[in-house]
């Protein structure tokens, strides 16, 4: 007698897109490099948006995001599943961003005087009046003014929606540090934005 047909879902029948990050990484480490594309497609927008939130410069977004994924590709064979793949990606992104910010800091040091001089002579370069800007723009401008160690937790929490544990993992610090930096960063933002918010 024929046995009834049984539908079984084996690991092979699940499309790559439906597999977890961990399963894809395991396949990658086993030699199947095609899984990397799925990982990139899944997380590229996060990485690109973090880079954009940090630098607010579209010219740098793709180049830096690609650098992040190249670094991840090279390091993935040694990934030990001690954190989630995306917080690990955030960590790489943050480190790349810090390198870039260091480079830019040097450039800014030399160009600051010039900018001040230009602003005095060219009114169009002055910070726009609050009434000309939306809240999102005002907050983004204020965020740019924060030092990097306060800016990054705010971006990861309020823009990217990471948990405190994930932020601590991405920034390689304690959860307590994340709490205090977030609190101080928000206080700084309030100080910068209060005149604008009251003017509105």
């Amino acid at each position, binding site marked *: 007698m024929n046995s009834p047909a049984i539908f079984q879902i084996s690991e092979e029948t699940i499309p790559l897109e439906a597999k977890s990050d961990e399963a894809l990484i395991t396949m990658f480490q086993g030699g199947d490099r095609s899984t990397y*594309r799925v990982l*990139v*497609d899944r997380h*590229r*927008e996060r990485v*690109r*948006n973090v880079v*954009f*939130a940090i630098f607010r410069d*579209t010219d740098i*977004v*793709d180049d830096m*995001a*690609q650098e992040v*994924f*190249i670094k991840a*590709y*090279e390091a993935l064979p040694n990934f030990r599943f001690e954190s989630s793949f995306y917080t690990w990606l955030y960590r790489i992104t943050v480190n790349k961003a810090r390198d870039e910010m260091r480079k830019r800091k040097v450039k800014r040091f030399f160009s600051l005087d010039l900018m001040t001089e230009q602003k005095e002579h060219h009114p169009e370069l002055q910070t726009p009046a609050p009434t000309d800007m*939306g*809240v*999102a723009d*005002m*907050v*983004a401008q204020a*965020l740019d003014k924060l030092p990097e160690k306060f800016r990054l937790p*705010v971006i990861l*929490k*309020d*823009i990217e929606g990471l948990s*405190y544990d994930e932020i601590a993992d991405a920034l390689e610090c304690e959860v307590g540090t994340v*709490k*205090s930096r*977030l*609190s101080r960063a*928000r*206080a700084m*933002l*309030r100080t910068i*934005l*209060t005149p604008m*918010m009251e003017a509105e």
Partner: protein
Amino acid sequence: MKDLSQKIVTEKLSLYIDGMLDDAEARQLEVYIAAHPEAARELAQLRMIQKGLKAAPRVPDDSWFWLQLSSRIDERQSRASDSWKQRWWMPAGLVTAGLAAVFVFMLVTERGTLTAYFQEKTEQVAQVYSNGLIKGAIMPLISSIDKENVLQFALFGNLALDSTNTLQVAKGEGDSYKVELGRGTARKKFTLPQFYAAIGATEAQHEVVDSILNYGKAKIQKAVLVGERDEIAIHADIAQLNRMMVSTIAASLEPVQRVRFQRILAENDAPYVVAHDNAPSATPEKIFKRIAALPRSNRYVVITDDSVGFADMPSDVDRLMAHAQRVEPLAAPRLRAVGEMMQQLTERRMHIEQRLFSEQTPLRVFGGNQVLTIQFEENGMPSFGGFTEELAQPRQRPVLKTKNTPVKPPMPGDWRTLNSEKKIDLDAVIGNQEERIEEARREQKLREQKLEEMKKQQRKSNIEL
């Protein structure tokens, strides 16, 4: 509740808006906020800031991200694996660079001869044309086309005729090829720089691919002709032109670049994919010789408002193409007329099968769904062969059956019945055109003779004086 320091209030409010306080702490803080307006104001401001951050602008999606990334990864890996070789083979590298320079030189010189064929201007034909003797008798529909459009055609087999009509070529079922004309928009995905970057092409390869695209451009420009009475003539070769271009581009690439090319085609659902091949890139000289030796045919599929068939067009078509730019302003009204004709055909939703002209080149035409489909068997066209064909293989995909129903026997008054009684009139058009060209040539010759005689007389009178 006793007053808290500003620092503690700020910390607690920050945790509160993130939902990080436990229930008891949260309730305590809410009581405090109710009793302290400045804390309530701070909370409102923190929420507004958080809302502003959540509404931060996002970067637009970049569909090129993976292609660029994978190219960079490939490049990084091949550089890493080659680095030791470079150290040990420095002299060989110099020799290779020297050879490459020679190839580039040859490429430039050979390209001139290759393109000369298509740009040849015959004084006689130019005069015939400028005299207005054959203007409007037959003209190219696609005279204005850039290399990027040719690239899209090579990769995806489609070409925009205007904003709503496209020409699409594809491999049909079995050994057949298909050409479709009708409603649709051509895909445009790659600019040339993007394409070169994605395959990692060298400067020398740019030149080769440019030449292949120029060749394709010349072919496409003379592939669709429109007659005086809105007949359409489509060069049969165009159906496999994109295959030839994909195959030849693949031949010009190194194996690792071929893999990238293969990936681009696969990821973009292109009709052809590159067959696996580890052969090194063919030299520009070899590619140009092969292209120059491709079989030439003047075989066109000719469609009128009531018939369809193969016809061999006069060889003057090649020469006429050199003057295509002069008729460009006339292309738009022609295209509208052709569009109307196709609409008439498709509205009648005729399903026809034609074997009028040659049993060796069976031809089928389907009308329907605002698209006119012409399908012909491979044996009706010259085979390109070699690396100009074999490296590009039709993509394996489920065969999509045409929506058209099988051909039914003709009914009285049916288009096919009419067609069998009324043969294509295009021979007359072509014959008429040939006569007009001949006539113009004779007139030109007479004018030249007269001019020569006048000059002789002038010289003679000068001497006498």
